[in-house]
């Protein structure tokens, strides 16, 4: 009896001691910062009272949220841009990845090499990708200006100097790189029972019909999963902006993440409370996005 009890205690001790490091790490890196940004979003905290945040008072408790949506033009632009980038990843990256996955799953000669090439931009550092596109867009040494000059002589396009083009410049530095999504989709396609395809072929279905009537419907849950990952990437976009446009020209390519960085760390007029408010909004938007996409693709058993 006693022996059993000591064994039980040992077991509890083991469980605690094995869980402790992970829980500590979670508390320090996730829980504490999360609680911190939530509470300080109701405080006044900027470069004037740098030392400690001061509660805004119950009458003004939502002041940061009110101001960020009404008077903070940079935040509003960042919010709109981030939403645009979410929509663009859904409209461009996802269909493009699905198309490539369908094509590569036909195993034409060279499919493996093409697949690997497609994945490379996703596994190298985004800092490198950013720097590459910064140079591609540069009027002095890039190729975009040169190509445009060949089509329309004397046009001298400067992608990053124009507000509208800079947005598209940032977009095309990531939106076509759907390699990881494509890998996941291909894994799913290859796991489909080949018997289904044989039956369809016997019935005389063309390969286009097979793709649209059989593969795509079966692929739907996985398209939902990759959409969540890709849309999240669009929502959180930071590296490409920091390296390519630096938020410019004239703050036109701010994203939510870039706004948070600029407001908390990277400018003269710091406003920590406001950056944390934007952080809370970003987290909320992320959860909303996952909910919407899951509903859209109606994945089974609440996955």
């Amino acid at each position: 009896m006693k022996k059993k009890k000591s064994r039980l205690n040992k077991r509890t001790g083991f469980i605690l001691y094995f869980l402790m490091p992970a829980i500590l790490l979670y508390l320090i890196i996730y829980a504490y910062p999360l609680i911190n940004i939530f509470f300080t979003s109701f405080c006044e905290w900027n470069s004037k009272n740098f030392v400690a945040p001061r509660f805004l008072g119950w009458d003004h408790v939502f002041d940061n949220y009110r101001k960020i949506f009404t008077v903070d033009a940079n935040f509003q632009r960042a919010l709109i841009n981030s939403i645009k980038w979410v929509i663009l990843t859904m409209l461009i990256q996802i269909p493009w990845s699905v198309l490539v996955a369908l094509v590569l799953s036909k195993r034409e000669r060279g499919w493996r090499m093409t697949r690997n090439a497609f994945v490379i931009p996703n596994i190298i550092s985004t800092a490198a990708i950013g720097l590459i596109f910064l140079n591609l867009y540069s009027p002095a040494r890039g190729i975009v200006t040169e190509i445009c000059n060949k089509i329309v002589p004397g046009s001298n396009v400067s992608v990053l100097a124009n507000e509208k083009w800079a947005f598209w410049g940032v977009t095309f530095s990531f939106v076509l790189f759907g390699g990881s999504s494509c890998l996941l989709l291909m894994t799913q396609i290859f796991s489909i029972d080949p018997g289904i395809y044989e039956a369809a072929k016997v019935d005389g279905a063309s390969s286009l019909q097979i793709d649209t009537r059989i593969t795509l419907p079966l692929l739907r849950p996985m398209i939902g999963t990759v959409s969540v990952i890709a849309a999240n990437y669009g929502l959180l976009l930071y590296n490409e902006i920091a390296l390519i446009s630096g938020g410019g020209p004239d703050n036109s390519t701010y994203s939510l993440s870039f706004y948070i960085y600029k407001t908390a760390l990277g400018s003269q007029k710091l406003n920590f409370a406001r950056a944390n408010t934007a952080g809370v909004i970003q987290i909320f938007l992320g959860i909303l996005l996952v909910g919407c996409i899951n509903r859209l693709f109606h994945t089974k058993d609440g996955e």
Partner: protein
Amino acid sequence: MSKRKKNGEHSEGGSRGAKIFRYFIMLLVMIVSVYPILWVFISSFKKNPGGLSLPDEWIFDGYVTIFTKLDIQTYFINSFIITIISTVISVAIVAMAAYVVARMKFFGRALVTLMFSTTLFIPSVSISFPIYRLLGDLGLKDTRAGVIFIYSGLGIAVTYFILQSYFSTIPKEMEEAAKIDGCGYTGTFVRIILPIAKPGLATAGIMAFLNNWNEFYFASILLKSPEKMTIPALLGQFTSAYSKNLNGMFSAIIVAVVPTIVIFCLLSETFVKSLTAGAVKG
């Protein structure tokens, strides 16, 4: 029927038009994915980098500069130390928790899984300011230790899901046999479970390694002294500091990405497995 399945390299047929379309898409993928890197590679040998043409004469100045004047080795060593240590710490810590959850029934078990799942919804940029302050208070700002600490906690959800599902597939008899032989809980975990779980640990480790190796945001805000920077942080500096030395910048990009590309090409099947395992949970 089974012949086709075995012989995975062969195409599934289709009309001539379909084939042309497929090759066209594949060509497009190749251009989009490879051309930007190839362009930088070719440009890095030009006297004045950039433009569409091939170099008139091939110049290696950029590569010489980054190894002699810029000391890119230092940044590689920093990246390597930070990535290895943080990957080992995070995989070890998460493996311990994942094992306990996968194998033992206890109060609050579901809570641990929930805890790891919530990290998927907490983007690191949103919470970066409190983390930045905290590291400042701990005296870890601009230190490799601080970055290692943060990296150990990033991406733990993915590691957790991979490892937890892997541990659940190991037969229970293994542990029972160990217990009869007088192995304690910790002994069983270290000597029996970890060796069996090597493939799962490798999958999780590759994912964590890749993410930490490429991480840019925290590296760029935390590391300010050049001798402590990682490769991505160094690349970030090029937008301003070194932009006058174009050959150096182009060569540095190539030197920064080539190791990843080479390792990926050598181990592509392993990588593909890791990349798909890592994201299945979404």
